[in-house]
């Protein structure tokens, strides 16, 4: 049977997943060497989620994530050297070394950040989706969060609003089964996160997050649904992190057997086997891809290592926007690459808001029905 995907599509997914894997392995190694400090949450094992989702949406769609946030920007096309430089705390990082591992931002690629407070980015995503509707744009916002974030008030408050106002946002719960060191089933009355969608009357689905093609299909479908004005979607990507919560976590709370079993679901060999079965590429093709991505990561580490620390004047920048101050375009500043897709927003005079969030007539009818007005 012929594949529903082109060779290029499949190899792009493989290449990106391999980049994420290799990048994180090297990040872990550099953490061990003391080049990276603070909290460093690796994405190893979860690559299919970010890559499958990213390939299913448009470059101008918005994306944001939590603190396990190296994978998503790399999937979007961010510069690996600048992400690594951010982990190293160097002035050439995306946030000039002010954010570190948990706060990667690359607005040029519509990646609106990693956030360090569990669930704190969930309302932000709804706001970005709200802005899309407000301006009659058909963009969707994809927001990643962990399973433990689904117990935060921010999750419930936001899903209620997103559902009520039909906001075009796809919430992707990366259920890796542990909130730090606590198994999700120990802290959640309903550990199947997607079922919570029913509480808000929205669409909720579970997806095999270890299969990049299943992720791709689910997000593609969800994006079309959101763009058509149907409101938010809650996807639960069942995945697994092969490493601990952060570099400081030896992950003693799970058995060796469990990790070994999950490693059999590694999304990289799974996709590779599929591509080979479809006779779209041979082992030599994969080796070439892997060598190229290894070189990208090697160069990223070298770039980060050779980059200077931020200048001390930077202490006094980027806290408050001073009058007339321009926003920083990182790749242009660091690599001299011309930035072509920096967001521009319509001025208030040009903007026509035609959206009726709560049509008056409808609301009054509802009130009448409820006997509130006669």
């Amino acid at each position, binding site marked *: 049977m012929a594949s529903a995907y082109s060779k290029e599509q499949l190899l792009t997914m493989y290449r990106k997943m391999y980049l994420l894997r290799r990048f994180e392995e090297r990040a872990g190694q550099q953490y061990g060497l003391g080049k990276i400090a603070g909290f460093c949450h690796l994405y190893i094992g979860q690559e299919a989620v970010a890559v499958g989702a990213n390939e299913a949406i448009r470059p101008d769609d918005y994306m944001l994530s939590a603190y396990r946030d190296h994978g998503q920007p790399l999937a979007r096309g961010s510069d690996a050297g600048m992400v690594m430089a951010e982990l190293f705390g160097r002035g050439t990082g995306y946030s000039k070394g002010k954010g570190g591992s948990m706060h990667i931002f690359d*607005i040029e690629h519509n990646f609106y*950040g990693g956030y360090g407070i569990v669930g704190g980015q969930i*309302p932000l995503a709804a706001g970005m989706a709200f802005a899309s509707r407000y301006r009659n744009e058909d963009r969707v916002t994809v927001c990643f969060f962990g399973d433990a974030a689904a117990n935060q008030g*921010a999750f419930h408050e936001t899903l209620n609003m997103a559902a009520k106002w039909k906001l075009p946002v796809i919430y992707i719960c990366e259920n890796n089964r542990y909130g730090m060191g606590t198994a999700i089933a120990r802290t959640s009355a309903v550990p199947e996160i997607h079922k919570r969608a029913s509480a808000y009357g929205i669409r909720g689905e579970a997806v095999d997050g270890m299969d990049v093609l299943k992720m791709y299909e689910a997000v593609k479908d969800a994006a079309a649904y959101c763009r058509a004005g149907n409101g938010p979607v809650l996807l639960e990507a069942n995945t697994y992190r092969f490493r601990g919560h952060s570099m400081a976590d030896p992950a003693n709370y799970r058995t060796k057997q469990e990790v070994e079993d999950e490693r059999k679901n590694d999304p990289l060999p799974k996709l590779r086997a599929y591509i080979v079965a479809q006779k779209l590429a041979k082992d030599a093709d994969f080796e070439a891809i892997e060598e190229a991505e290894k070189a990208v990561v090697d160069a990223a580490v070298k770039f980060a290592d050779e980059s200077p620390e931020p200048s001390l004047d930077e202490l006094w920048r980027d806290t408050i926007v001073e009058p007339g101050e321009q926003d920083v375009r990182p790749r242009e500043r660091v690599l001299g690459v011309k930035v072509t897709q920096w967001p521009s927003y319509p001025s208030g005079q040009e903007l026509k808001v035609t959206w009726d969030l709560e049509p008056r007539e409808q609301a009054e009818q509802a009130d009448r029905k409820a006997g509130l007005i006669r």
Partner: protein
Amino acid sequence: MPELMYREALNQALAEEMERDANVFLIGEEVGRYNGAFKVSQGLLDRFGSARIIDAPISELGFAGMSAGAAMVGLRPVVEMMTWNFAILAMDQIVNNAAKLRHMSGGQLRCPIVFRGPGGAGGRLSSQHSQALEANYAHFPGLKVIAPATPADAKGLLKSAIRDENPVIMFEGERLYAVKGEVPEGEHIVPIGKADVKREGTDVTLITWSRMYYFCMEAAEALAKEGISVEVLDLRTLRPLDEEAILASVRKTNRAVICEEGWALAGIGASVVDLIQSKAFDDLDAPVARVTGLDVNMSYAANLENATQPDAPKIIAAVKKVLYREGA
């Protein structure tokens, strides 16, 4: 110049800014069909529609964060907190997201948003509804904090806040909404960061903001009858502090009393004292005094409520103390 109530001045500022810029929207509990819990948004739903005057669910953290997200991509939300007491629930979004987005992104993002609502003691609302929480927000880099006392300043500062590229926290006086004053029509802008000498004097500077301004003026009038000339400096903006204005006034009068509704410990007045003693110590003829709310939670009982808050007699006593008159 027309006389308006404080709430009407705010309403005018909102309407004018929404007219000028379609990126501006108002969200909060009861702001739409109910016309605002304190009637600040009276009539705005009919004028601007439900996409721009949004009745939010009672989810302070949720809609504060949602609005910050909208601001990240270029809208200019005004978030009404029914009171700042409830906004404590939203503090994570205000502090951990809105205030830090620019910094964490290394200058890629901006978050032009206004969080506004009534603060300070209500009329016998007990401890959960009667708190002056300005100091909590003034503590955080990345935020601007304003607290106007008069209707004219309320209008001018709100307009500045909406046009500001940063998150601005606006404390309105819950008991000031019905206060009347002259308000310039149309384009009236009060810059953020500028204090105002509301009353000139030579003997002592009274430094204050928001509702305490009225007690300070009352005290100043009473003291004038005793031959004491009081200068009243209304800070209007609490972050950034107008250091120049504070120092200039203290250098002129050589004595200062700070009056704030909030608690003394880690209060804004403590920072003002620090500023004065570190930069104008040689100009002082007496230690700087503070009049603050008592270090207790607010009671319901009328006499206890009154005793908890600063008032004109307490301010008069403090002024006399720094002048080495009675009670020194």
